[in-house]
């Protein structure tokens, strides 16, 4: 009886520990900004005025190390550019201004690659993207900011 009771208690304890580990795992995953499926946005540029977006993107471009790994949401117009030297196409989300002189934008790469141009929005079409900010360092020593693992929410 005493032993049986211990086995039951041990089994309950095992369940409690399993449940505890599950809760910890869920909470850790929820706190991990790179965990898939999380809705946490670190910087929501789509909520900001164009002046604020310009200033914020400027901060991200001039001091990228402060923003690497942050989940960014951004609203702008779709733009693409083909680089002959590297044989690569770059995609960007651009926030244009009325005079077209102080436009700001960030390059992005999709989490699930698509075929260009069929599966991409048309040039100049308004898009909302969400992804993780990164600073790519090239062999030449130069670096450029990019939003990685991006998804296009609205086309």
């Amino acid at each position, binding site marked *: 009886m005493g032993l049986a009771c211990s086995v039951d208690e041990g089994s309950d304890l095992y369940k409690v520990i399993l449940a505890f580990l599950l809760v910890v795992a869920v909470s850790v995953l929820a706190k991990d900004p790179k965990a898939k499926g999380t809705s946490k946005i670190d910087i929501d540029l789509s*909520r*900001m*005025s*164009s*002046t*604020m977006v*310009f*200033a*914020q993107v*400027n*901060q991200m471009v*001039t001091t990228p190390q402060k923003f690497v790994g942050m989940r960014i949401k951004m609203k702008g117009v779709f733009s693409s550019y083909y680089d002959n030297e590297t044989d690569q196409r770059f995609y960007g989300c651009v926030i244009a*201004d009325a*005079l*077209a*002189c*102080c*436009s700001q934008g960030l390059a992005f790469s999709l989490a699930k690659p698509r075929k260009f141009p069929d599966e991409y929005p048309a040039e100049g079409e308004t898009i909302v993207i969400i992804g993780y900010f990164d600073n790519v360092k090239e062999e030449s020593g130069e670096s450029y900011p990019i939003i990685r693992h991006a998804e296009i929410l609205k086309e």
Partner: protein
Amino acid sequence: MPELVEKLSFYLDFPFVRYAIVVGVLVSLCSSLLGVTLVLKRYSYIGDGLSHVAFGALAIAAVLKVTNNMLLILPVTVAVAVLLLCTGRNARIKGDAAIAMVSVGALAIGYLLMNIFSTSANISGDVCTTLFGSTSILTLKIEEVYLCVVLSCVVLLTFVLFYHKIFAITFDENFARATGVNTTLFNLMIAVIVAVIIVLAMNLVGALLVSALVVFPALSAMRVFKSFFSVTVAAAIISVVCSLIGIVIAILAGTPVGSTIVAADIVAFCLFYGVSLFRGRGV
């Protein structure tokens, strides 16, 4: 309204917005103080001339890839301010002609250099930001904020300490000289301070709109107040309030910061002009 307050509170969490407000208040305060003296000495347009010189120096700094462009802009602007304000009477090319020549010359050379020796992929953006201050105050680095705070404190302290001498030189330079005031020294001091303010104000409203910060608050205050002291105090308050309103509207509505501040100054001038008409004083 609660939505706007919530949005403003959200924006105030960003350090660069707080830096912009601090620098905006200090620069507008300094520029309005000296603005009264410059308007009364008939040097209203010197702000425009010196800001164009600062633009030219900025272009040279960009071409030479000077990391801290302030090291070049400030000395060049101070030198030209001293030339214009201190040797104006003895120079062969005098007053407004000298200012006009320096102003357009520096602007043209600056734009030419930026085009020929392009160091940026977005020249039009750089020119637009420098000339119209579209967002430059929101892109300040912390070192620039500290520099602005230090220079503003020096300007304010100098103005307060030498208030009586500046007052004497502003109204009657010959009389001030006759009473033993070293007018050459104080004119030199005013020239240096004006140059420092112009360079600082370029970050706030851009090179083309600097004159507005110098002229509008002083002219608005002169519509209603009549003594040098009351005009100076009123100009300082008007300038600070207009800058704050301009910055807040610009970040909330997404309008260019410099021109929004100047628009606020124009509205203030119209209000004060209206008050002066209402009180029967006229222009």
